[in-house]
């Protein structure tokens, strides 16, 4: 498809388990972002990748959260030892560029993964 693809769309797991969320950005988009949407906190930035540069992890809420982006394309967000407060919708977005004259490029979002921790 032409848009950002995320899988799974829904994930239910038990507290303490690890989960892995996947994001396939729009082809050719060099920038990739993860956000979290929850009732209490609204939309929060988690992590950002740009090409082959080191990611900006400044939004990750704890060291249980990590992400990687292989080959500059697909990204996975991993949450270890999940807690109930991790329940949220995890959104991935991609954009063409983030610097110079293209710095106002809009981010395009996937439909998210709804994560429920029992």
């Amino acid at each position: 498809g032409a848009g950002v693809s995320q899988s799974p769309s829904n994930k239910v797991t038990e507290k303490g388990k690890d989960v892995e969320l996947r994001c396939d950005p729009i082809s050719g988009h060099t920038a990739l972002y993860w956000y979290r949407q929850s009732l209490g906190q609204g939309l929060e930035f988690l992590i950002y990748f740009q090409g082959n540069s080191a990611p900006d992890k400044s939004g990750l809420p704890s060291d249980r959260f990590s992400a990687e982006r292989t080959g500059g394309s697909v990204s996975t967000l991993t949450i270890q030892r999940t807690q109930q407060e991790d329940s949220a919708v995890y959104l991935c977005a991609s954009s063409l560029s983030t610097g110079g004259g293209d710095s106002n490029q809009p981010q395009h979002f996937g439909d998210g993964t709804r994560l429920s921790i029992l």
Partner: protein
Amino acid sequence: AQSVAQPEDQVNVAEGNPLTVKCTYSVSGNPYPFWYVQYPNRGLQFLLKYITGDNLVKGSYGFEAEFNKSQTSFHLKKPSALVSDSALYFCAVRGPRAGNMLTFGGGTRLMVKP
């Protein structure tokens, strides 16, 4: 730290009437505000963005936004609302850090009644 405020949790409007969804922001440096819309169980869909020099920006589905530098506002408007416009609307500004991650407002639910 930068922030975005959407003072109304919900806006109700009758179909055919004009609508306004308010957004104000606080940023260091030049502001680059955006509007996104979210339908149930979907991700955020880009509506429009501020273009330098344009105080009235036109976007998708007949929406437009009015940029006011002195009031640091970027209100979303539409001359004639449709029932299908009912959704959750988010205002956002891009971050000061390299990478332009977005800082979002809390969202405003727009309800358009027939």
